[in-house]
C-alpha cells in the first residue's frame, strides 16, 4: 500500500490521453447548457452520479481483483452509445500503455494481450491501481475525480472560464466524489453474492445522445 501512487495515477498530467477529451462538455457548451461555473457544476454533478459512478464501480472491482474481461463485458453492457464505447476503449488502450510503463504487472500484460485495441478505460484504471498497490477505494476515487476534472479542464479551454472558478467547482464536488467512491466500493463488496450485476448501472441518456452527435461533428476541439 503506497498512497502517494494515487497522486501519480489521478494527476491530470498522467500521460493516458485524457487531455483530448471533454467528457461531453463540448456539446453541452455548444448547446448552451454550460455557460458559467454554476452550470459547469450542475453538469459535473450529473456526470459524477451517472457515468462517474459506473466508472468508479468498474475501477473498484478491477482493483479488487475481479476478472477484468468479465468487467470489460459489464462495461459494454453499461455503455449503450457506440461512440462512448469507442472512446472508452481508445482511452483504455492509452491508459494501458501508460500503466504498463509505470507499474509493470503481469495482470496488465494479460489484459493488454486479450484486448490489444483497448479494454474499457475504468477497468484498466482499476487494474493499474491494483498494480500500483492501491485499494479499490483509491481506484474508485481516481475514476470519480476523472469524471469531473476532465469536463472542468475542457470548459476552461472552451469558454475561457476563469480557471479558479473551475477548480472551485471541483472542490465543491469533493463530498459528492467521496460518496460516489464509497458507493462504488459498497457495490463491489456485493459481487461475491450477486455477481457483477451488483455494480452500478446508472445512465445519462443526454450524454449518450450528445456523444453520438458530437462524434459526427466535422469540426471539434475535443475527441469526445
Amino acid at each position: 500500500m503506497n498512497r502517494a501512487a494515487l497522486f501519480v495515477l489521478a494527476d491530470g498530467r498522467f500521460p493516458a490521453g485524457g487531455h483530448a477529451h471533454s467528457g461531453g462538455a463540448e456539446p453541452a457548451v455548444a448547446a448552451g447548457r454550460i455557460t458559467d461555473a454554476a452550470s459547469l457544476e450542475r453538469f459535473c454533478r450529473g456526470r459524477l452520479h451517472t457515468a462517474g459512478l459506473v466508472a468508479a464501480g468498474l475501477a473498484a472491482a478491477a482493483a479488487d481483483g475481479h476478472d477484468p474481461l468479465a468487467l470489460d463485458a459489464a462495461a459494454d453492457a453499461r455503455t449503450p452509445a457506440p461512440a462512448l464505447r469507442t472512446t472508452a476503449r481508445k482511452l483504455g488502450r492509452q491508459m494501458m500503455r501508460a500503466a504498463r510503463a509505470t507499474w509493470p504487472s503481469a495482470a496488465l500484460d494479460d489484459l493488454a494481450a486479450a484486448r490489444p485495441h483497448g479494454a474499457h478505460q475504468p477497468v484498466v484504471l482499476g487494474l493499474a491501481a491494483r498494480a500500483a498497490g492501491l485499494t479499490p477505494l483509491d481506484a474508485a476515487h481516481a475514476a470519480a475525480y476523472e469524471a469531473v476534472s476532465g469536463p472542468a479542464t475542457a470548459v476552461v479551454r472552451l469558454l475561457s472560464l476563469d480557471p479558479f472558478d473551475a477548480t472551485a467547482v471541483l472542490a465543491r464536488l469533493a463530498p459528492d466524489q467521496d460518496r460516489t467512491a464509497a458507493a462504488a466500493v459498497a457495490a463491489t463488496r456485493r459481487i461475491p453474492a450477486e455477481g457483477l450485476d451488483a455494480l452500478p448501472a446508472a445512465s445519462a441518456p443526454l450524454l449518450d445522445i450528445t456523444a453520438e452527435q458530437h462524434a459526427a461533428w466535422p469540426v471539434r476541439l475535443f475527441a469526445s
Partner: protein
Amino acid sequence: MHRDHALDATFPHRHTYSAAAPTRPDGTRRALRIGLGGPVGTGKTATVAALCRALRDELSLAVVTNDIYTREDAEFLLREAVLPPDRIAAVETGACPHTAIRDDISANLEAVEDLEEHAGPLDLILVESGGDNLTATFSKGLVDAQIFVIDVSGGDDIPRKGGPGITTADLLVVNKTDLAPYVGVDLDTMARDAEAQRGPRPVLFTSLTSEGGVKPVADWTRERLTTWTTAPTT
C-alpha cells in the same frame, strides 16, 4: 544486472511501450519517425505533402497529423491525394497539439503503431504537429528526429529569438523565401542568427511553391533514413 534479468523474465515486452526501441516486437526494424512542428501557417502541411510526393515512389511512407481542430490537415492531405487514405491518420489533440506530441504521446504512439500494423511495413512515418508556438517540440519517445518549420513572413527576428524549436530541432526549415523581398526580410541575417542559435545543426531555406522546392528537405530526410537503416538494432 541480476535485477534486470528478473524483470526481463516477468515483463518481456516492456521496452515496446514507447518509441525508444528501434525494433518491432518481432525483431524487425520499425519505421523512422520524423516530427514536423512550427508556428501556424509556415507551411508544415505543405512540406509534408511535398515530401510525400517526392518520396512516395521510392519509400513506403505514412503520415500522422495532430490538428487543433479535428482532421483539418489530414483532410488537406487526402484532398491533395499525396498518399492513399489508409496511410494518413489524424490524432485529435483537445486544442493542444504540443501536449499530444510532447507531454502525453499515447494517442500518437497508437496512431503510429496502427499505421505500421495496417499499412506496413513502412520505411518512414511523418508526424505533423498542428501549428503551435516557438516552444513546441516533439518527445524523444515519439520521434527519432524533428524538423521545425518557420517562414520569412513571420519576421527575420524569429531565429534570433530562439526557443526550443529553433535551437534544438534536428533541421530548421525557413520557408517562403520567395516572399523575402516583399516583407523586407534579409535572408543572410536569418541564416547568421540561426547559426548562432543552432551551431552545427543544419538550416535549409526553401520556397515550396517553386518547382522542386522541397528537394533539400527530401535529401536531408533520405540521409536520415540511410543512417537509420544502417545503424545496428541492438
